[in-house]
């Protein structure tokens, strides 16, 4: 740990030298993802460079959302930086709740942020949150099982191919499920997956007058296809599987394919955690021949709530955490495969990063996602696996609970869609859309 001791010395020196400058303590609310926890370990580097110290509030995703949303909407001021996603940023930005990030330093090079990410984290062309890492979704598959089944994965598969491959790979006696997908209730879990998938089937959440669309054939096709595929080739009890559950199933070699966040690629190819690290291939998320693929777009980003007393220090932190230097710092200590992906163009131009097996497919997936034009038929909302309106999180969580009840065999597809239709229209009415 020579690096850490160097850091320690550097910290001490800076503290002595910079004691005249205003050193502040900023409070940051963040999610307990691996990349975020890694960042906490490097906080000393930030303190050494600026003299500011950091207090972390690390929470599980659902608790974090509940916590920061309450605080921002009441202007509580408990945090100087909040970790939020692509869903919250445009809504909060338009409410004037976030500090615009339009005066970041030249060194920081805001123009280097991937345009898809910058677009999703802006409102009216102003950036309100800086992406720490970004993701799309793609197919991760077992090359050995694919070969055994005598199939070859195209770079851009269709849903019918995926369903067929899943059936062929399934070997339940040996604990291998052809495909693992999210079925867990929650708008950011199963809700996100089925919404992104429905886009490729030509479905949408709302028509242009904000009427719910669950009574359409497209939604019924989506849900039936999903349920049939999962009962043929999915793991038992997939109704409660989310990102984390599927990750460990895949790492333990129990899935032939997994369609999920591109950031998972570095976990499934990491030999320390994954038993199948050297047998993983990647492909674009499937489509259904309708011109829209089923991949989503998401970023975990750092934003500053308006009204904080420590805006300058908070901005310094954001510039540090989402900078090119931070990526270099992580790369130098833990290798290129572990740097936060999906945020900066320069990362994908870096010769070292090109050797990482999933780099190109991640970039292709991100580039093929378009939040402003996510559905086959026109829709009034922005967002792929969500609709960027304040009511969506609540509605989509309830809808996905109805869907999960289908996955658990507790109600029929038709019943779930009818309930989803009714509760969505009811909530939209309450919010004054209809």
């Amino acid at each position, binding site marked *: 740990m020579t690096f850490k001791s160097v850091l320690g010395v550097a910290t001490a020196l800076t503290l002595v030298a910079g004691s005249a400058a205003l050193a502040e303590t900023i*409070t940051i609310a963040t999610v307990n993802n691996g990349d975020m926890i890694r960042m906490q370990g490097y906080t000393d580097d930030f303190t050494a460079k600026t003299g500011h110290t950091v207090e972390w509030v690390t*929470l599980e995703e659902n608790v974090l959302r509940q916590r920061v949303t309450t605080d921002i909407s009441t202007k509580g001021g408990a945090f100087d930086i909040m970790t939020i996603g692509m869903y919250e940023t445009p809504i909060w930005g338009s409410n004037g709740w976030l500090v615009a990030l339009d005066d970041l330093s030249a060194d920081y090079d805001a123009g280097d942020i991937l345009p898809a990410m910058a677009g999703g984290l802006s409102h009216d062309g102003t950036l309100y949150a800086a992406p720490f890492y970004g993701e799309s979704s793609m197919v991760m598959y077992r090359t050995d099982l694919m070969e055994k089944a005598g199939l070859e994965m195209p770079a851009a598969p269709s849903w019918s191919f995926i369903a067929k491959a899943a059936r062929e790979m399934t070997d339940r006696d040996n604990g291998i499920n052809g495909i693992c997908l999210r079925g867990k209730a929650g708008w950011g879990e199963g809700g996100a997956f089925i919404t992104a998938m429905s886009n490729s089937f030509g479905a949408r959440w709302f028509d242009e007058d904000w009427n719910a669309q669950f009574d359409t054939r497209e939604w019924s096709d989506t849900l039936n296809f999903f349920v049939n595929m999962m009962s043929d080739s999915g793991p038992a009890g997939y109704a409660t599987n989310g990102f984390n559950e599927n990750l460990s199933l895949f790492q333990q070699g129990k899935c032939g394919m997994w369609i999920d966040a591109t950031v998972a690629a570095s976990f499934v190819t990491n030999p320390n955690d994954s038993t199948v690290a050297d047998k993983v291939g990647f492909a674009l998320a499937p489509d259904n021949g309708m011109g829209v693929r089923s991949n989503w777009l998401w970023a975990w980003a750092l934003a500053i709530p308006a009204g904080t007393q420590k805006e300058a220090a908070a901005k310094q932190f954001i510039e540090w955490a989402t900078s090119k230097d931070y990526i270099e710092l992580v790369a130098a200590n833990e290798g290129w495969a572990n740097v936060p992906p999906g945020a900066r163009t320069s990362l994908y131009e870096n010769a070292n990063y090109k050797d990482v097996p999933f780099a190109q497919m991640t970039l292709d997936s991100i580039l093929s996602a378009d939040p402003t034009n996510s559905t086959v038929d026109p829709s009034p909302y922005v967002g792929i696996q969500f609709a960027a309106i304040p009511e969506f999180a609540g509605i989509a969580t309830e809808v996905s609970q109805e869907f999960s009840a289908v996955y658990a065999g507790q109600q029929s597809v038709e019943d779930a869609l009818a309930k989803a239709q009714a509760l969505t229209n009811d909530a939209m009415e309450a919010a004054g859309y209809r």
Partner: protein
Amino acid sequence: MARAVSNRRRAINTALAWAVGLLIFFPILWTILTSFKTEGQAIADPPVFLFFDWTLENYAIVQERSNYMRFLMNSIIIAGGSTLLGIIVGVPAAWSMAFVPSRRTKDILMWMLSTKMLPAVGVLYPIYLLFIQLGLLDSRLGLVIVLMLINLPIIIWMLYTYFKEIPGEILEAARMDGASLGKEILYILTPMAIPGIASTILLNIILAWNEAFWTLNLTAAKAGPLTAFIASYSSPEGLFYAKLSAASTMAIAPILILGWFSQKQLVRGLTFGAVK
């Protein structure tokens, strides 16, 4: 008390009671054991009980990630402070209800208990706004006050039922002797009430320690107790049973140890007037 029982019957009782006791305790034991395993051993098939390579690495990881001591201190201050404050407010109220009862005493007692039935989630916004106004957000003082108010009805009720068991004649006699109210409480009541007060304190420390809604929603970095600590371990990426177990063990160990050491006191006063 001592009932003459054959050794055979005693043995059957013992076996049965131990079996049930171990069954009830098993989830906690399993958590503690898992906290010393590697992540791989934690999900091993078949499960391993004792014969694995005991490791402290999970505790090291948890310690490196979160400042456990600060969460622990906050838990101690918040649970202890709210209980102390509750006792200061509750003892006089319970005393007067027990020894100077009026027709409305029962109603007041029931009304106090009913304030506990307000669903906390329904008033999160009002309380949050209030806390901002009063500058109590993310402060231990704020949590001490809220938890004191939440548990006050239980405190008063426990003390009331306990005080009621103290025979009133003793007080009458003291009054005849011309003892003042203060002396009456200090020299006569207090010694008799100590078991009741002790178990009230214990029960309320437990309730305050385990309260997970307000302690999570009204804190940020400064005042967060162990309930906030555990909220960062509930579903990270990849395998996490061993780390979750280590964090869980660290969160419950202090109160478990306190509870075990003081279980006699706890049991002695924990009657809620259930025994006549």
